[in-house]
């Protein structure tokens, strides 16, 4: 394991500190308990948006704190959800009186810790709504499992709900648009290599030289199944097709196509995947109206990518286009 770190135990502390130094115009970083707050929070009259989760997915979530997106991000240890004693003060810090929305990826740890924090915040008089993101079609959804994971769709939920909050939507309205994005977004990912959690020191799963893992999550968990390595176009189809069919996309519909890198894959390869996915959607009569290509929700240095498709309506499109000013996503300002 070779990493640009000092001490596995200090990775999150030092990284978040560096983030705060680099983006002091956008955010304030609280070191202990650790959370990241939009510089001008709480914004009077605005619903607060808080997200969080294990670290190791950068720029998620800290990179999305700022005007038009999140009001606070709560980073846990690497791949470990944050704790209520972090989530609670973050929630209080961004509450202007209009209430707070928690955007939570559907993992047992995240759900339980945000649940506790929401109860505690409510006990202190803050109204909290939770938007649960569970867009990963690699996981068979079932009443008898932990359910689908939250992956790439999270970025889109945070952007669009963030824009709704920024324009002054009510607590319920912001939560509703977040849910609507979640209902209309699906993702699936592939790993060409595993990643190494700093404190573990060894890769999170094993892959032979010519094997890839289809259906991985974002925590270095193994995926649905291993297959022999194949050309990018074939891999793209394996990711895109279940996403499209699960969404039930029909010809004539408009989508946002998001090709995401897992952290260790060159941008040039993501564009090769984008090319195939865009062509395939076009062949199916689906219009790619917006797109996003890059490393936006990662698994440390894992090589691989995920494909996310969001069915757009006019309101979501407008909210996607609305100005945003964060460390990792910025336009219109």
């Amino acid at each position, binding site marked *: 394991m070779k990493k640009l770190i000092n001490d596995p135990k200090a990775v999150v502390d030092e990284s978040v500190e560096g983030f705060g130094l680099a983006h002091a115009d956008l955010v304030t970083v609280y070191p202990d*308990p650790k959370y990241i707050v939009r510089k001008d929070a709480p914004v009077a009259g605005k619903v607060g948006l808080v997200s969080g989760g*294990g670290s190791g997915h950068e720029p998620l979530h800290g990179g999305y704190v700022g005007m038009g997106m999140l009001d606070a991000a709560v980073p*846990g*240890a*690497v*791949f*470990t*959800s*944050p*704790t*209520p*004693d972090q989530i609670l003060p973050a929630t209080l810090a961004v509450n202007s009186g209009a209430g707070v929305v928690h955007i939570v990826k559907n*993992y*047992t*740890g995240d759900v*339980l*810790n945000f*649940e*506790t924090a929401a109860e505690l915040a409510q006990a202190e008089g803050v109204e909290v709504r939770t938007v649960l993101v569970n867009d990963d079609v*690699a*996981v*068979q959804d079932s009443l*008898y*499992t*932990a359910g689908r*994971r939250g992956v790439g769709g999270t970025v889109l939920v945070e952007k669009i709900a963030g824009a709704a909050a920024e324009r002054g939507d009510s607590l319920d309205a912001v939560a509703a648009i977040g849910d609507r994005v979640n209902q209309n977004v699906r993702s699936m990912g592939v790993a060409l290599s595993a990643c190494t*959690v700093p*404190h*573990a020191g*060894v890769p*999170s*799963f094993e892959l032979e030289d010519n094997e890839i893992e289809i259906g991985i*999550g974002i*925590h*270095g*968990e*193994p995926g*649905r*199944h291993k297959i022999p390595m194949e050309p990018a176009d074939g891999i793209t189809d394996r990711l895109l097709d279940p996403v499209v069919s699960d969404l039930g996309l029909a010809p004539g519909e408009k989508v946002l196509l998001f090709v995401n890198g897992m952290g260790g894959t060159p941008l040039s390869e993501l564009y090769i995947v984008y090319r195939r996915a865009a062509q395939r959607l076009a062949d199916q009569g689906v219009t790619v109206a917006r797109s996003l290509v890059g490393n936006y929700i990662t698994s440390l240095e894992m090589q691989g990518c995920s494909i996310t498709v969001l069915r757009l309506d006019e309101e979501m499109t407008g909210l996607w286009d609305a100005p945003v000013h964060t460390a990792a996503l910025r336009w219109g300002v």
Partner: protein
Amino acid sequence: MGLDVDWAVRWLTLSAEAMAEHRVELIELDRPIGDSDHGENMDRGFKAVMDKLAEAPPETAGAALKLTAMTLMSKVGGAAGPLYGTAFLRAATALGDAADIDAATLAAALQAARDGIVARGKAESGDKTMVDAWTPAVDASAAAAGEGDVRKVLAAAADAAEAGAVSTDPMLARKGRASYLGERSIGHRDPGAVSSALILRAAVGAAE
């Protein structure tokens, strides 16, 4: 003679030692079916418990467990943090401010802990989680409680929890991160069940 606050502090101390000692093993168990952090999380959490105990020595066993609950909840994160947190909180409530814990109270506290885990995590027996260590432990401790010997209650719980952890090997996971793997979760031991057995074994050692 029952158990007191000294036993509780010894229990937590031995638990912390066990987590440190088995840190890598628990990380390794969490690797094939999880995200390689369980040992790290538990070790970090119990180290924090040790700090808290040193800062403000508790007066009762119940207070010791409550402090543990709050610390685990705020330091562990992940699924295990809230689950263990709830378990210790419910156990603390069951103990109340008893200075001397008898076998029946002890068994009731263990049951409360298990019920707390189930209430939070909604896992059933056979879902391949820590519940598969706790439920047999609670059953065995209830059976042993009739004899009135707290040491026997603890030993029965620890033995059953260890067997319960082993029993997770062939299970197909239905809760937690391992459930994403479906069939591929079979053949691996659940890390949370193992850490649960270690903690219950530490309780035995503390009473020796």
